[in-house]
């Protein structure tokens, strides 16, 4: 049988295709991927942060150092997850983008891999802009901070992959708003974005640790605050990578059925 393993050159062509499409909606992408989280971070970090007297339990010099990385990774989760709902369904079924892709030398695995890689790149780029504002606000915090857009990109990919596993089996948008409200938004809010998960009931904190957003925030926060250690950081990244791998594998059947039956 023909190999269905992704081919790097074909994956890259899918990435390019998404990039050309995104040029048309750049303003919206910038607004949701950069300006919105920047405003959120500054409002919370400076606004609410000024009301926080004691940040010693947070382990950061001030609240902005705490909430900045949280908002960066939380936003990547939202962006990645949302992109795998209506947009992904349109590309897979309604608008036929991926049906065209599989009529070329590319395969359905190139299409799904390219989509996830593009989400990683887009969110990493948005995070570079976000990081620039954050570093202006908190000051230079070391070279480790420069790795945080990479973490944001991976987290976005993991959220995109997880949701794509759901969307790839759908023929309509039924249930999408439930995923958005009951999965993505809570992940953004409760993954340690605005406060330590230690403040949550232990059962909820345990569940939160299962998801990639928490791990992305932990790594990004450690990097921004110059306290990252190699092994724990790698373990956090491993969880994120596992989500990407599992999400990819679970999307495989849905993409294959939609594009090659």
């Amino acid at each position: 049988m023909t190999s269905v393993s992704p081919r790097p050159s074909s994956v890259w062509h899918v990435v390019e295709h998404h990039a050309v499409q995104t040029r048309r909606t750049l303003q919206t992408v910038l607004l949701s991927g950069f300006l919105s989280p920047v405003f959120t971070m500054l409002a919370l970090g400076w606004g609410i942060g000024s009301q926080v007297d004691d940040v010693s339990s947070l382990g950061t010099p001030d609240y902005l150092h705490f909430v900045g990385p949280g908002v960066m990774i939380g936003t990547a989760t939202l962006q990645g997850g949302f992109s795998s709902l209506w947009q992904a369904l349109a590309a897979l079924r309604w608008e036929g983008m991926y049906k065209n892709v599989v009529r070329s030398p590319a395969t359905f695995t190139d299409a799904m891999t390219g989509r996830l890689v593009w989400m990683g790149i887009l969110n990493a780029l948005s995070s570079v802009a976000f990081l620039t504002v954050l570093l202006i606000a908190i000051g230079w915090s070391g070279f480790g901070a420069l790795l945080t857009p990479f973490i944001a990109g991976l987290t976005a990919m993991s959220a995109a992959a997880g949701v794509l596993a759901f969307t790839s089996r759908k023929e309509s948008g039924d249930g999408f708003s439930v995923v958005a409200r009951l999965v993505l938004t809570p992940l953004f809010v409760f993954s340690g974005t605005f406060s330590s998960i230690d403040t949550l009931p232990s059962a909820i904190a345990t569940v939160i640790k299962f998801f990639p957003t928490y791990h992305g925030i932990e790594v990004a926060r450690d990097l921004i605050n110059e306290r990252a250690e190699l092994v724990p950081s790698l373990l956090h990244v491993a969880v994120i990578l596992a989500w990407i791998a599992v999400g990819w594998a679970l999307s495989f059947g849905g993409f294959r059925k939609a594009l090659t039956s």
Partner: protein
Amino acid sequence: MDLAVTAHELTKRFDDFVAVNGIDLEIRSGETFALLGPNGAGKTSTMRMVSTVSPPTSGALTILGMDAATHGREIRGRLGVIPQEDQLDADLTVYENLTTYARYFGQSWSEAKQNATELLEFAQLTDRADTRVETMSGGMRRRLTIARALVNTPDLVLLDEPTTGLDPQARQLLWDRLYELKERGVTQLLTTHYMDEAEQLADRLVIMDGGEIVASGTPSSLIAESTTAEVLELRLADDQTLSHDLPFRTEVLRNRVLIYADDGAAALRHIRDLGVEPNSSLIRRSTLEDVFLARTGRQLVD
């Protein structure tokens, strides 16, 4: 004889439904070959297997000398596929639709741009290069779809119902473009349920029904083998009937009667001699529709 496509016992099943039931095909390089049949005949399923998008359930399929089961990427790199629905990138311009798609075939951006310029000329869309697709008419979208399918200068072009939904002018323009491709030596595999389209474009064809091939040959040979040179179409009053012992093959349809005779005028005289004066009569030459009716007992387009 150089063959572009050979299929043996090609079968496609979807659970219990058999869409294509063990068909054999041989398509010669450079010819235009049509799959003719009603909706649900198995044409599109066959096309999707030949485009190596949908794997056969069983059977052997060789395309451009390569096994479809093992060389999908290589085969698709030499195919141009024009699907039933245009599926263009509505948010992109005409030009971007071509260049973006060309990249999938390994072309550099400069190659893609050069090809796009030539293809826009071929499709008579040069003045629309910067137009966004969502603002274009159906005919222009169809021409762009055809242009996009040619970005890789394919050896084999697959056209699935290429003119469905087009007005007569747009249809004729497309036929002209397809004839140009044929002149360039490009092999074309076409599905259609329009008999005139098949007669106009195809060198050879098969008629499919219920997932099987019920007839094959050139349009003229199929007509000569399966039916008479002319057909007399009659519309009768409600209280009129025709004798069952007419010396012609007769098909009674919902609102007309078809009488197959090599000399339609003589057949009409014979009917009138029997004392039957139809409300209207028409003598025409036999078409592939008549072949389909003769082979299956049903009309091609219901």
